[in-house]
């Protein structure tokens, strides 16, 4: 672990971090304002239908401006001074366990705030147009604002317990937004599934916090990181693995990944903001934030990279077999976050690259989701790619912005994904040894498959023959929708270059995740690896073009396909597995227990009750009732008491 970093935080622990000053001390508004506006929008009811979306959209824009100011004020400082603590109030004081509410302003949290409020603003603006005809638009903006509040709390909280509040807060917002059209049974089921999968992860997060308290005596970041040096590897491994379980739930990583594709039941702006750009990357944030803990446990880091590697391939394979454009993007998100996990699992060699990919992904994936939303908007909510085709002619702006996102995700230079993904592939190979080769190859193959399925999606949607119904009249979306798409497309193009130029991001994040440690030797030279990656990507593109552009696309999914395709369509039987191994036995258990409780545990008492009950009915006919028998028993009790007391007295 880095010496500076430990020094910064342990001195913070002993003397208190540098306090927030000036505009920094207003940072609590970042949580309070969107929470308040969400409450206003919900409580005002129909009265607010006319202006609710304007208030809802104004909030993140205002916050973004403030975060920019905050960014420059932190950037004006140097080194440790870039880490600022804003103490607010005492929250849960129970003797040794003493948790305060406070915010941590540092490069990592500010970076996330920029992403959340920046992309958040664009998606709020987009939603004004996208949700225009929905009677629940005000409620939609209320939930979005609630999400912003919870997400900002998640990244700004100065300890694990506060993170947990934000963590489940975004889970709630996600639940509400997936089930936004709650009268659709599929949406309600998907929302519940998401919440429960997250709760499984949250068991891990809870236990991690308990372990911290027991072995480190605190749950604040500063305190925990200061104590890490004195903790045993076993404790750190346990904490790290429990944190990882939480991260897997939130970020849709193996084995808790199945909720994320189902979450596409929610309105598309939600998929873009929550289920692509921000919330689902919270797991990456958690691991990067907990760098000192993970750095202290090689075993836990190994598990993180394994989870990342499995998820990369899982997402890629499933993504190839989907006909629903949003599902393709969802599996792609699962897989791209796998890259981020891989990166942060590699430790100080790649923390910054994980965050880098998180940021570029935030731009290009959000942009492509908004593009998918724009297509749905044009196609009466059709999302089956087999019903699209040739849309580039009728939706030029959507096409171009989507295309730029596509070029970014497949990682062609000079688009943003090239910079971020190649860095991760490189770092994986540089890990060294057999594990380095395996991880590197997985990342490399993943890049090829990504190119394949994304090309497939691009071709099926925007190229080829028109396959849409005659009564469809696709049209370009209004400017409230296209402008955010254009801005995100700019990000898809330039963000990568700007962030790696002069190692801007790596240096900026240093006070938060520690200094970047370059690999001692390169397994494969950078130039060769870049060339190799581009060849693999080209192979993926070529394969997809041959399969989907050179031949007409059938308007219904072909049957009698290979075993692999069948499995990929059924998300590699992950849902089937959960159903057979968890859900069904759970239902049997429930039924069995209900039976036992009624017949067994209660039966004995029932027999007793029945005999008395029979008696009681007779008693009631005599109009005596229970009061009398009860009074009698009380009297009897009192007599016994009296007798006993007397007996003692006269002993």
């Amino acid at each position, binding site marked *: 672990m880095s010496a500076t970093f430990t020094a910064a935080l342990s001195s913070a622990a002993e003397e208190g971090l540098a306090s927030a000053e000036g505009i920094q001390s207003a940072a609590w508004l970042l949580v309070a304002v969107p929470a308040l506006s969400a409450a206003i929008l919900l409580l005002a009811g129909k009265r607010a239908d006319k202006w609710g979306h304007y208030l809802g959209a104004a909030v993140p824009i205002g916050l973004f401006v403030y975060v920019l100011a905050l960014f420059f004020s932190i950037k004006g400082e140097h080194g440790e001074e870039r880490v600022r603590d804003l103490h607010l109030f005492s*929250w849960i004081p129970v003797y040794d366990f003493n948790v305060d509410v406070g915010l941590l302003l540092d490069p990592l949290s500010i970076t996330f705030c920029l992403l959340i409020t920046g992309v958040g603003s664009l998606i709020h603006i987009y939603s004004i147009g996208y949700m225009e005809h929905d009677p629940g638009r005000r409620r939609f903006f209320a939930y979005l604002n609630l999400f912003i509040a919870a997400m900002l709390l998640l990244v700004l909280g100065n300890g694990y317990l506060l993170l947990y509040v934000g963590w489940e807060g975004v889970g709630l917002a996600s639940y509400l937004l997936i089930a936004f059209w709650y009268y659709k049974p599929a949406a309600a089921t998907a929302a519940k599934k998401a919440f429960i999968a997250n709760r499984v992860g949250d068991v891990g997060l*809870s236990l991690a916090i308990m372990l911290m308290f027991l072995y480190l005596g605190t749950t604040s970041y500063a305190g925990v990181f200061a104590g890490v040096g004195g903790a045993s590897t076993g404790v750190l491994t346990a904490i790290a693995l429990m944190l990882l379980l939480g991260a897997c739930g939130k970020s849709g990583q193996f084995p808790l990944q199945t909720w994320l594709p189902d979450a596409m039941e929610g309105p598309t702006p939600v998929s873009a903001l929550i289920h692509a750009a921000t919330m689902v990357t919270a797991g990456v944030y958690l691991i990067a934030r907990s760098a000192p803990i993970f750095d202290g446990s090689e075993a836990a880091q190994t598990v993180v990279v394994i989870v990342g590697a499995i998820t990369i391939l899982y997402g890629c394979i499933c993504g190839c077999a989907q006909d629903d454009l949003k599902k393709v993007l969802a599996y792609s998100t699962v897989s791209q976050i796998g890259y981020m996990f891989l990166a942060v699992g590699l430790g100080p060699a790649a923390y910054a690259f994980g965050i880098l990919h998180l940021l570029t992904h935030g731009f290009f994936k959000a942009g492509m989701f908004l593009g998918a939303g724009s297509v749905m908007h044009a196609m009466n909510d059709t999302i089956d790619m087999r019903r699209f085709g040739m849309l580039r002619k009728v939706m030029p702006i959507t096409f171009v912005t989507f295309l730029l996102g596509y070029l970014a995700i497949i990682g062609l230079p000079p688009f943003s994904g090239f910079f971020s993904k190649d860095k991760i592939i490189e770092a994986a190979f540089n890990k060294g040894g057999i594990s380095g080769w395996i991880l590197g190859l997985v990342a490399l193959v993943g890049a090829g498959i990504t190119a394949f399925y994304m090309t497939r999606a691009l071709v099926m949607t925007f190229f080829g023959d028109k396959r849409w119904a005659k009564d469809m009249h696709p049209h370009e979306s209004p400017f409230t929708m296209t402008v955010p798409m254009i801005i995100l497309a700019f990000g898809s193009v330039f963000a990568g270059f700007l962030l790696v130029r002069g190692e801007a991001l790596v240096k900026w994040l240093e006070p938060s995740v520690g200094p970047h440690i370059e690999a001692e030797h390169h397994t494969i030279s950078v130039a060769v690896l870049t060339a190799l990656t581009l060849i693999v990507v080209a192979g993926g593109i070529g394969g997809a073009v041959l399969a989907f552009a050179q031949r007409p696309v059938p308007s219904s999914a072909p049957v009698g396909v290979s075993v692999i395709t069948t499995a990929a369509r059924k998300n590699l039987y992950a849902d089937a597995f959960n159903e057979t191994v968890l859900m069904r036995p759970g239902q049997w258990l429930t039924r069995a227990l209900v039976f036992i409780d009624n017949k067994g545990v209660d039966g004995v008492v029932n027999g007793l009750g029945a005999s008395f009950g029979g008696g009681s009915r007779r008693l009631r006919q005599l109009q005596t009732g229970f009061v009398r028998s009860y009074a009698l028993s009380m009297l009897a009790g009192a007599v016994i008491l009296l007798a006993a007391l007397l007996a003692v007295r006269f002993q």
Partner: protein
Amino acid sequence: MSQNLSLVGLIALPLVGSAVCFGLPKTNALLAKQVALFFSVATLIYTIVIGVAFDAGGDRFQFEASYDWIKAFGVHFAVGVDGIALVLVAMSVVLVPAVVLASWNSFDSADDAEELDAPQRSVKNFFGLVLLLEVFMIGVFVATDVFLFYVFFEAMLIPMYFIIGSYGGPRRQYAAMKFFLYSLVGGLLMLASVIGIYITAGQSSFAFSDLLGNVPDGASQKWIFLGFFAAFAIKAPLFPFHTWLPDAGAEAPVGGAILLVGVLDKVGTFGFLRYCLPLLPEASRDLAPLVMILSVIGVLYAAFLAMGQRDMKRLIAYTSVAHFGFIGLGIFAFTTQAGTGAVFYMVNHGLSTGALFMCVGFLIARGKSRQISDYGGTAKVTPVLGGAFLLAGLSSLALPGMSTFISEFLVLLGTFTRHKALAVIATTGIVLAAMYVLLLYQRTMQGTVNEKVAHFRDLNAREITAVAPLLALIIFLGVYPKPVIDIINPAIKATMQDVGKSDPAVPSSFGGSK
């Protein structure tokens, strides 16, 4: 600090209201409701005054008063509150006005009574019974004499018996009978223990302060503990003494169910904390593993049962059994965090389950059915009710940001520092809680709109006034629980000292050096 505020006055206030309600002519139902509301709000205000005057750093018991009652046997009418009793009284008196409002029109219609094959029920008597119950509920928490506690403990049964038996659902007779029998058995066993404690302590007094530290260790203490345990485990109820609760909770009218599950059951867990731990420390320590194992079983067992219910009120009753498992675990883990968490849990559970029962009651008032399958998609027709129902449900699953999270987390954390395995098993209960709450919400509120609910009207002002303060309090105490925690902490610390346990050592917060 004004120590001359009278707890006897606090008991007398609802008693007067109750007498007025009973005394009113049967035809003047509205006046009875107004009287009940007035007295319950007055009691609430008086409690707030007492709460403000309470000095968290002061004596263990405050506002004490003691009058000889049966001098020959050392029975006193002695009252006083520590932090634990104070917050539970406060929770109770918050619920009563809410119950009065929520039950406002429940018994007005003669049709319902006919459906249930019951005579037209007296509205004024219902409100009289609720206030009488409030008298006993306050009394049982503020009593500082074991005999007086016993009297209030048993007296609570009577109004509740009539509330279930006369105002309940179709199987009210069966449920009331079962409730009665269980409580009777528990009560008699406790009576034996009350006598036992009096004899073995040898102080010729039933006063808590006289008994404290004077019950000799050994086998007799264990028997006394078991007597109390039986009464409290039935009342709370802990697994496997819980089977009366789903029946009673389901058949009781909603107002009665709220007070039954929200307050009466707390007397069981309160009894553990106030009487078992301090007065019978050795037995408490020895038998703690048993109680904790039963508690953890209850957390999981009841959660599965909740998922399997078709009747909304039974479902909520089972969720409460699961929650009582957490409370039992917290009490017998013997750490300050778990103990404070358990007491705060009792408060929060009262508010949360109160709100949940109330929302279900609003649904039943519209749909005339307790069956989950008779609803569906209701939130589309009644969005305000849907929102309140969801908030109440989220508080039941202990969503962070709500007060229930803080108490549940404290219980688990405090248990973890001493019994890791039990805490880990109990923590999995948070997944099950999410399942039963969201399943209920999905089946009743989401999905396709059931034609039976299409005509429902949304909550009116009275109904909103009844439920909104509970939800607001849950959120407020989730964000800023410190005032309540500060009141509970010293009482828990004192209780832990009585039982002879101190917290396991954790590294000092910012040391980290070894």
